[in-house]
């Protein structure tokens, strides 16, 4: 079973994402900020990352830069999932190596469509 790392400081969002992604046959690992997410990636590189932008300690943008520089860090498909819904943020995310981008609020259809788009489903 493939693993998806869900990175969000909101436990409610992590719970919603877990429910959706488990329904898509992913095993879920959770992290509440970018630093904890990096530690999780060092332990085991996931196939997918669902990533919030604004988080304490280390935000999603900084995490993504660090991830892409790690050995094997180019492998996971990274899908931002954030309330930042302007073109400038989206462009920055793509430039930093994000594969897709979800603007909150989201639902199962959107997550499914985005994961299909990057070949995870």
């Amino acid at each position, binding site marked *: 079973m493939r693993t998806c790392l869900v990175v969000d400081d909101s436990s409610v969002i992590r719970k919603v994402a877990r429910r959706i992604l488990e329904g898509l046959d992913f095993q879920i690992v959770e992290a509440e900020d970018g630093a904890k997410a990096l530690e999780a990636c060092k332990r085991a590189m996931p196939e997918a990352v669902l990533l919030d932008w604004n988080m304490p300690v280390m935000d999603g943008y900084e995490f993504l830069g660090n991830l892409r520089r790690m050995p094997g860090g180019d492998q996971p498909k990274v899908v931002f999932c954030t309330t930042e*819904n302007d*073109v400038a943020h989206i462009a920055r995310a*793509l430039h930093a190596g994000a594969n897709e981008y979800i603007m909150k609020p989201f*639902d199962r*259809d959107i997550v499914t469509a985005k994961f299909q*788009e990057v070949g995870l489903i």
Partner: protein
Amino acid sequence: MTPLDYEYLRKLLKERSGLDLSADKQYLVESRLLPLARRSNLAGIPELVQKMKGGAEMLTSEVVEAMTTNETFFFRDKIPFDHLKEAVLPALAQARAARRSLRVWCAASSTGQEPYSIAMLLKEMTALFTGWRIEIIATDLSQAVLEKSKAGLFSQFEVQRGLPIQLLVKHFVQKGELWQLNADIRGMVQHRQLNLLQDISHLGTFDVIFCRNVLIYFDQQTKAGIFGKISRMLEPDGVLALGAAESVVGITNLFRPYPDRRGLYQPSTAPVARAGAAHVLKAVASAAR
């Protein structure tokens, strides 16, 4: 809603749009028409039917539109668009190199996600079609959805269902809570109101026809009639795309499916030996492998 009201609506919808509601679709009628009744300051569906019987033509049109407007999203089902990009359009670019024109028809185009998906795809393939006359005709029974389509304005939810983020950034601008397609993409699509039950031959002939997720609502005889019309409007080496749940099998012999390529069809009479047809078949076949 009384059984008589339901029968009245079934008959009217069949006559006006070809929509073939089975006896157990009361829930669908209620979910679609109750909001319309409320908007029209009517207590419920019996009152709505009463008003229609009294000759309220505008309201009757709105009822037909409400019942025939269907869900759509960008690059729906993905596979037909992959075939277009990787095989069908490159092949047609070769086959039509002399005349340098391409005509695409999206029948029952609803709020525009399908024709605009094709427009964006063609825009991404500019190298193949520079200087070509490209026509994308979007038709629908409902004037209301055509107006929405023309505006090219979509909600945040709509632009996240099937549309790759790179295309959103490239071809849309934010308008408050909404996203609007850029004028160059909107300008590639022509909108026309059209009832598939009526004479549609005036649209001319096409290289690609998308007629997806609309025939499922028609009875067999109506479907066969529409396939007959479409067959006369599709170039001999043209391509017909149907919805994932639709097929020609058991309905018409005018089209044959491409083996192992779900959703794509070609006229049965297609002269496979013709250069154009051979290009299309060969390219589609290799893309499907």
